[in-house]
Each structure stands twice: as C-alpha cells, then as structure tokens.
C-alpha cells in the first residue's frame, strides 16, 4: 500500500512537471512577455532593463526552476488584459466554478445511479428502453445546445428560471456561495443540469452494464438461493460491487466537468474560471492560460490520486492482493 502510494505520487509529480514545462513554454516563448507589458514608446534600453529585471536573460533552466517555485505558490504574474495578479482573478472566480461542478456531479450521481440500477435489473422494460434512448440523445446533443434548449424552454418560454449569472451570493471569508440564497439556488438549476447531463448518461450506462455483469455471478445466485429479499440482494450485494468502476469514472469525470464548465459558463454567462479562461484565449492572455492549465492539471492529478487510493478503501480484495505481494 505504501509503496503503491509512493509510486503513484511520483507519477503524479512527473505529470505535473510535464504540464509545468508546457505552461512555461507557453509563457516564455509564445509572444514576447516584455512586448505585452510595455507600451509602444518604450525605448530598447528600457526594454532591456525590464528584461534583465524579470530575469528573462537567465539560462532557460534557471527560469524554468523559478517558474516552478512561483507556480507552487500560485504566483503566475499579472494578467495582460486585466492588469491584476492572476492568482487574485482566478481565486475570485474559483468558488463559482467549483460550486457549479460539485452540484452537477451530485446531480449526475443521484440521478444516474438509480437509473442505471433500474435499467440493469429490468433489461427489457419499456421504461429502461426509454432511459437508454434518452441517454443516447444526451450523448449526441452537444453541451452548448442542451444549455440553449433549457434556456429557451425554462427562461424564455416559461420564464421560471434565470438564464444567466449566479444570482445573489453570500460571502463566507473569501469564498462566495450561491447555495444559501433562493436566487442563487435558482440560478444553479439550469447550468448544473446542462453540465451534469452528459456525466449522468455516462454513469447510468456504466452502472447498467456493471449490474448486468454482477447479477450473473455466483454470489448473487447464492444470495437468491439463500432466500434473501430481492431488495437486499439488489442494493446490498449487487450495487456495492458495481461501485468500483463508478468511483473511477466519477473521479475522472470530475476533472472533465471542470473543463466542460467552460462551455456551460459561456452559455449561462456564469462568472467562473472557465469564462475567464475563454476570455484569456480570445485575448491571448498567456499568464491566465498558463495558470488555468496548471490548476486544471493539478486538480486532475489530485483527483486521480484520491481515486486510486479509494480503491483500497472500497475493495478489500485489492488490499489482500497487495499484502500478499
């Protein structure tokens, strides 16, 4: 267990280093950082002085080392377009994105797992076929179009829910939350359904195929032979054993939820990191791009690490295997 954890940790660090190298290359070589900071009337001498002061004349390896040290403290310099520290800009928008991602992940799990269990147990019922058709459509509809459809239906036509923004937020320290106000909660509904729908269909299909596999196993037959109640077999014995892949996929999906939030945030003008990143791509704001890339990579790596370690908690067989090794 310890050796495994250390090996995974080393892999994670390697991935982070590679991503840092990409970010650094972006930062250093795509567009001249000095050009972005000074005006047109700056003399070559002043430019050279700035260059020296920023350390852009040092050897590349020294610069990369400095970049990593700064990145570890989440210091990515100043945004070209906003003239504010990147860390402040992202920090201000982080809560919005994380809240949206969390709510949509919960939505995907709470709806997806029961639908998957149902379709797995009742393969040929009409409702199962309906669920499966919906899931196929859910996978084929692009995220942005789902958002537009929801806006058209619930905001424009029925006028039930807001179509943009976060509503009223409450500040708890530096964290702003929309979960505590009515308008904040209302504003969350459409974006989180948009963002979670794809994940929901994915989880549903996964749970379904796992259930189909598990109910064929001997221990389920045995449980049935013991005369256990169907409900207890389904949920205590079958569902439990389908959860390992569900945890993996959910873990991996949390990362892509945060990335797909870019689309949802654009459709709903949600003031999160994704919208900031998109603006920075459009305005070639390299510091924000680099910082966002590092942040996403970090989240991915941490989540993957947690997922790998969760295996041991969830699946006792793994623990035994590792102990035997």
């Amino acid at each position, binding site marked *: 267990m310890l050796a495994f954890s250390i090996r995974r940790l080393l892999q994670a660090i390697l991935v982070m280093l590679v991503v840092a190298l990409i970010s650094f290359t972006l930062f250093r070589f795509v567009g001249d950082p000095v050009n972005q900071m000074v005006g047109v009337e700056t003399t070559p001498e002043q430019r050279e002085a700035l260059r020296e002061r920023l350390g852009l004349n040092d050897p590349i390896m020294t610069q990369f080392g400095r970049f990593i040290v700064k990145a570890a403290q989440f210091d990515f310099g100043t945004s070209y377009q906003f003239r504010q520290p990147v860390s402040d800009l992202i920090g201000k928008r982080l809560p919005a994105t994380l809240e949206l991602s969390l709510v949509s992940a919960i939505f995907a799990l709470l709806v997806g797992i029961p639908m998957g269990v149902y379709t797995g147990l009742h393969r040929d019922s009409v409702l199962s076929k309906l669920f499966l058709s919906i899931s196929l459509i859910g996978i084929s509809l692009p995220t*942005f179009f789902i958002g537009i459809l929801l806006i058209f239906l619930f905001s424009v036509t029925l006028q039930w829910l807001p179509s943009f923004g976060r509503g009223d937020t409450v500040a708890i320290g530096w964290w702003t939350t929309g979960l505590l106000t009515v308008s904040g909660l209302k504003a969350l509904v459409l974006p989180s359904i948009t963002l979670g729908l794809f994940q929901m269909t994915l989880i549903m299909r996964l749970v379904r195929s796992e259930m189909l596999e598990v109910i064929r196993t001997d221990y389920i037959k045995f449980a049935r032979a013991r005369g256990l109640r169907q409900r207890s077999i389904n949920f205590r014995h079958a569902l439990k054993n389908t959860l390992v892949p569900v945890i993996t996929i959910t873990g991996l999906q949390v990362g892509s939820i945060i990335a797909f939030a870019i689309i949802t945030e654009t459709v709903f003008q949600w003031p999160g990191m994704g919208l900031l990143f998109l603006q920075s791509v459009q305005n070639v704001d390299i510091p924000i791009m680099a910082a966002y890339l590092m942040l*996403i990579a970090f989240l991915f790596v941490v989540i993957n690490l947690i997922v790998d370690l969760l295996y041991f908690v969830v699946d006792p067989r793994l623990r035994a295997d590792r102990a035997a090794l």
Partner: protein
Amino acid sequence: MTANTAKDAATDAAADAAAGVPPAAPRGRIARVLDSDILYSFLRSKVTILSAIVTLVFFAGAAFAPWIAPHNPFDLATISILDARLPPLGMEYSDPRFILGTDDQGRDVFSGILYGARISLAVGFLSVFFAAIVGVMLGLIAGYVGGKVDAVIMRIAEVQLTFPAILIALLVDGVARALFGNLDRERFAFWILVFSIALSFWVQFARTVRGSTLVERNKEYVQAARLIGIPRFLIMIRHVLPNVIGPVLVIATINLGLAIITEATLSFLGVGIPPTQPSLGTLVRIGNDFLFSGEWWIAMFPGFALAVLVLAVNLLGDWLRDALNPKLR
C-alpha cells in the same frame, strides 16, 4: 473495409468448416458482401438503416450544397437586409422563399445549414483522418519497436489523456492567436481547428493499434518475414498494418461524431470557424443572441441539424462496433 470483410469471410469459412459444412465454391466480391454477416446485421436493424439514410442525406446535402441550396448565404449580392429575421413557414409573416426563416442579415437558415454542414463535416472528416494517420503510425511504431520509443510515446499519450479534447483545442487556438495574430488566424481558422482536434484525438487510435500490434508482432508470419530479411519498416507497413487496421474504422466512426461536436463547440465558443464562413456551431452562436427576442429559429434549426447528424453518426458507429466485434457488446 475490404480487409475486414475479407477477414470476416475467412472466419466464416473457418466456422463452416468446423461445423462440417462443405466449403462453398469460390465466390465473387459482390456475392461475398451480399452474404456477409455485416450486411445481414445491417438490414436487420431498422435504426441503423435509418441513421445510414440520415447520414447519407447530410453528406449529399453538404457535398452538393451549392446546387441544392435555394440561396447562397456567402454571396452578399443576393442577400438583402430587408429579408432579415423572417420566421419559418407556417408562422405569421413568413416568406415562401425561406422555408426555415432567415437570420439577422437576411440569410436563409436552410441554406446556411447546408453550407454549415459542409464545413462541419469537412472539419470532422479531416481531423479524424489526420488523427487516425498519426495515431496508427505512432501506435504501430510503439507496439512494434517497443522499448524506450514505446515508453515515450505512451507516456505522452497518457499525459494527453489527462486533458479533455476541448481544453487542448482551446489551448492550441490560443497559441495560434499569439503566433499568427487575429487576422491571419481567421484565414487559417479551418486548418487550426482541424489540427487542434486531430491533436486531441490521436491517442485512442495509437493505444488500440499498439495493443493489437503487440499481439501480431510475435506471430509466425512476422517472424518469417523477419527471417527472410525484410526491413523493419516494410514489415510494419505491409504485414502488420493490414492486420491491425480493423478496429481503426470503428474508432474513426465514433470519433467522427465527437469531432463534429468538438468543432461545433469551439465555433460556438467563438474560437473556431469565423462567422464569414459559418459552420453549424457558428450558426448556433449567431442565433443564440436572438433567442431572447423571440427569433428562436436562427439557433434552433442549425442546432437540431447538428444533433440529428451526430446522433445518426453515433448510431452507425455503435452498430459498426457491434457488427465487427460481437465481443464488445
């Protein structure tokens, strides 16, 4: 495709022989296709036939857009601002010239969809094509050569898998903007888009091909080829490649749907195809601004066209996967 049908026919023959059926007389190519499992499973599934028809209609509509489309949305001489924001047929104030209505500049929505599908499909096909070429090559090399080369290629693939396609494409676009400047970027937008989507899709091809190459390289025919001194490069291309190419077609079909969605998403986000040559995603982006003023048709029709196209392609991909490899079902 031919490699596959040939292989299937071969396995059929083997199965027949095993079952004690006398081997059929040599058959022509067409007869073999008519008799194959693939055609049988195709004709058995109504959904598949329907999605094949829908896909073909889209392909034809896109390919022949200049001849079919009632208007040319790019020809400024033929569009008139006086026709702007006309609703589709069946609604009040509609104009029989524009069956699906017009957008804010008086361009016919139906023609826009035909021309848009042209660009969406072109980006989709080209990016999947390049992704497949790069992926198959790298997978073949990684699997056949092995060792450090394999390790490096697969590590890169793993790191890249960490990032969703959309994020990679956005980054590529951002870099392209920095390198080319905004004006040049618009000119190259099409190719930048193809490149960035291809870049994020090659991994799946590489992993699959590498897997089957690892199996093939130890088979006797490869050993024999090596023994008689055929160069490594030729063995890979001529002997291993035909045997590992089968699943590539399936992955390509499934990825075509994904590529079309990715293109549409990027164009919707405003970093893809510019509005002067709109793809389906760009059309939805344009229409999105008019959703609140009641002109829903500008965004909805292109959006639904996109959804139907992707759904049909996905269904075809699912069917192809099941038909070529029943084990995966």
